[in-house]
């Protein structure tokens, strides 16, 4: 038991913060978010060169073989910088799901940065069914809010097959699949709608016929990663606010000297620190759980971290706008980028009420046998 970063983890954190701060901060986000693609492929290749795409890929498949604490560290830093990139979809979703399944395919290509990827499973809204046809499969259905769904090279899609959840891989464009990027208020993300109309896939497209348990594990781990993103972004909101209010003078005093401002900043600090504790607690549980452990502890920790940090991020971004005063709701200042991102993240992978209800069930509120005692 030691709930502090190791030396190696601190090195990863420093390197990420340094690179992101130099190349991939809000100014970069502004540049790419106005484009249809939504990210800068050249800069992304630098991130690949830093080894980020291989972070959780086993060393045998060309990755670094690290765990979910390290993933949380990177996600936190990317949240702080608000770096729009394929990282979340490719690593926190796709590579995460493939490692949970112990899959052989694609992880090497992902680690090498040859392909970007995404996962369209319980994280998306809608349903897809798979029907065995001619030694292959036919997919039909509609999924909305698939992260990077229109731009990822590889789409891992969950579909109901014989009453179980199967996972299929679709490389690039195929007949019958319409991928439509959605225009969104938060411009740093690129969700898409995927319409499957008789999409014919070869047998080899099937990654796993019974992927339900592994996908549930992967989605909980992805929720932890998003919680970490929220921590970094929320802390950035706090920092921007402290800096701004220290420099801004009203009524003859720095705004930061007013107790109402200080106390709101203190509440932000509390939100940030408790969220950080929540996110890394859950990341440690994910590491302890492994790919085959009992997922209950992780489910509790992931739902706890996602609901807590998601709300904390929104509250911090909202307070940041309020304490910036008039400039806080201008396009020119960066606060709104975080505010919109915070709102979007609250809904991704289940909102707070969803996760709290899940926790309520898991801690036994429906266990009436016990209640009858």
């Amino acid at each position, binding site marked *: 038991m030691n709930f502090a970063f190791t030396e190696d983890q601190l090195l990863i954190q420093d390197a990420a913060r340094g690179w992101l701060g130099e190349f991939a901060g809000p100014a970069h986000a502004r540049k790419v978010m106005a484009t249809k693609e939504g990210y800068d492929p050249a800069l992304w290749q630098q991130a690949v060169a830093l080894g980020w795409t291989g972070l959780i890929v086993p060393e045998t498949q060309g990755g670094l073989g690290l765990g979910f604490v390290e993933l949380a560290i990177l996600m936190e830093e990317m949240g702080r910088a608000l770096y729009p990139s394929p990282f979340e979809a490719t690593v926190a979703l796709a590579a995460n799901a493939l490692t949970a399944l112990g899959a052989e395919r694609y992880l090497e290509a992902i680690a090498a940065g040859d392909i970007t990827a995404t996962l369209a499973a319980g994280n998306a809204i809608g349903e897809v069914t798979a029907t065995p046809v001619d030694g292959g499969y036919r997919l039909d259905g509609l999924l909305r809010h698939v992260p990077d769904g229109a731009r990822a090279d590889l789409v891992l899609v969950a579909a109901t097959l014989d009453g179980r959840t199967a996972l299929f891989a679709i490389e690039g464009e195929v007949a019958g699949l319409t991928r439509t990027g959605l225009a969104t208020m938060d411009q740093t993300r690129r969700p898409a709608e995927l319409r499957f109309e008789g999409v014919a896939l070869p047998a080899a497209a099937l990654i796993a016929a019974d992927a339900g348990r592994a996908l549930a594990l992967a989605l909980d781990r992805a929720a932890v990663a998003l919680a970490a993103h929220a921590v970094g972004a929320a802390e950035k909101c706090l920092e921007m606010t402290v800096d701004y209010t220290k420099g801004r003078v009203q009524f003859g005093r720095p705004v930061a000297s*007013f107790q109402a401002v200080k106390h709101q900043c203190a509440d932000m600090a509390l939100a940030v620190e408790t969220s950080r504790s929540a996110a890394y607690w859950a990341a440690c549980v994910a590491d302890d759980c492994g790919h085959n452990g009992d997922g209950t502890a992780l489910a509790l920790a992931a739902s706890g971290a996602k609901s807590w940090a998601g709300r904390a991020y929104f509250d911090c971004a909202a307070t940041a706008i309020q304490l910036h005063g008039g400039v806080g709701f201008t396009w020119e200042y960066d606060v709104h980028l975080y505010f919109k991102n915070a709102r979007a993240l609250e809904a991704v992978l289940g909102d707070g009420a969803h996760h709290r209800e899940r926790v309520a069930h898991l801690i036994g509120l429906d266990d009436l046998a016990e209640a009858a005692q």
Partner: protein
Amino acid sequence: MKLSFSAEDEAFRAEISGWMADHLTGPFARLKNRGGPGDEHAFFEERRAWERHMGKAGWIGVGWPTSAGGRGAPLSHQVIFYEEYARAGGPGRVGHIGEGLAGPTIVAFGSEDQKRRFLPGILSGDDLWCQGYSEPNAGSDLANVRTRARLVGDRWVIDGQKVWTSLAHVSDWCFVIARTEDGSSGHRGLSYLLVPMNQKGITVRPIQQMTGTSEFNEVFFDGAETAAENIVGKPGEGWKVAMGTLAFERGASTLGQQMAFRNQLDEIIAIAKANGRAKDPVMRQRLAEAWIGLQIMRANALRMLSQAGNPELPREAYVSKLYWATWHRDLGKLAMDVLGPEADVFPGEPGTYELTALQQLFLFTRSDTIYAGTNEIQRNIIAERALGMPREARA
């Protein structure tokens, strides 16, 4: 104490609602529910025509005294007018700053000449006004105003900058608080000037909001001029006159604003029923809370307006800005939560930015708790003026 309306009130209600039903049609039909906060640019010229149309029918200045050209309507009629206007989807009024602030100020503090000169243009819907109060380093605090005006011959010459000025780019006139006594500070030495906007000494620069649109402006005064007689009250009385203007912000038009809120809440409830969130017990609590909160907002406003004869500002008036701003901001968040994952999406291509009405509501309501006195300033005012607690120390 009675909340219900008389038969005579109801007859007036029938008159205005009938007029709206008859006139918000044809070329004006598409203006329904458009032009509110965050949507000020929508159909601007058409709304300007609508303002003139209302002026012709005598619906501008309903609450103004008859001596000033208004209808001199009693409180109950004013409430009914604003509520029925909004209920019918009447568009955001381009003349509301003139009708609600500049006009009443001139009625209360202006000279007879000024009344003759300025009121008819407001009542006809021809002249649009904007408000020159906030400054970049003064925030909501008029005592920090730095914009200066000097009397040079028969003209005031004005230098300085105002900010968060709605409608500045389309207004004919601006009422400006400027410092007219050299070396004065705080509330002293300020004057209330009426300044024509269409002159080369004035530059208007739009501020892009986080909605992507520009509802507010910076206004630069660089040797701008106005005639010596265009001062309301005496030189140095600007604070007193400005405080009067602020009091007019608490007029019956607030009921119209609330009816617009009601339309927004109704839309959110309809979505919740359509997408199933209305069945979620947690969401039901929030929707009910919002509904209750809006009813209370109306009751609070009616209480405040029923005390209009009271020389002392009642406490329900002190809390009203903080209350409605926070309620409305929370409504924006509620709208997003009811929409769920779809909340983020608008029609169009990624990279474009044309928000839906509810997205605009969500983003734009963040300004409600900031402009016209932030929530923090409002709490100071309540504590100090309504509760008599000690004033904030100035460093």
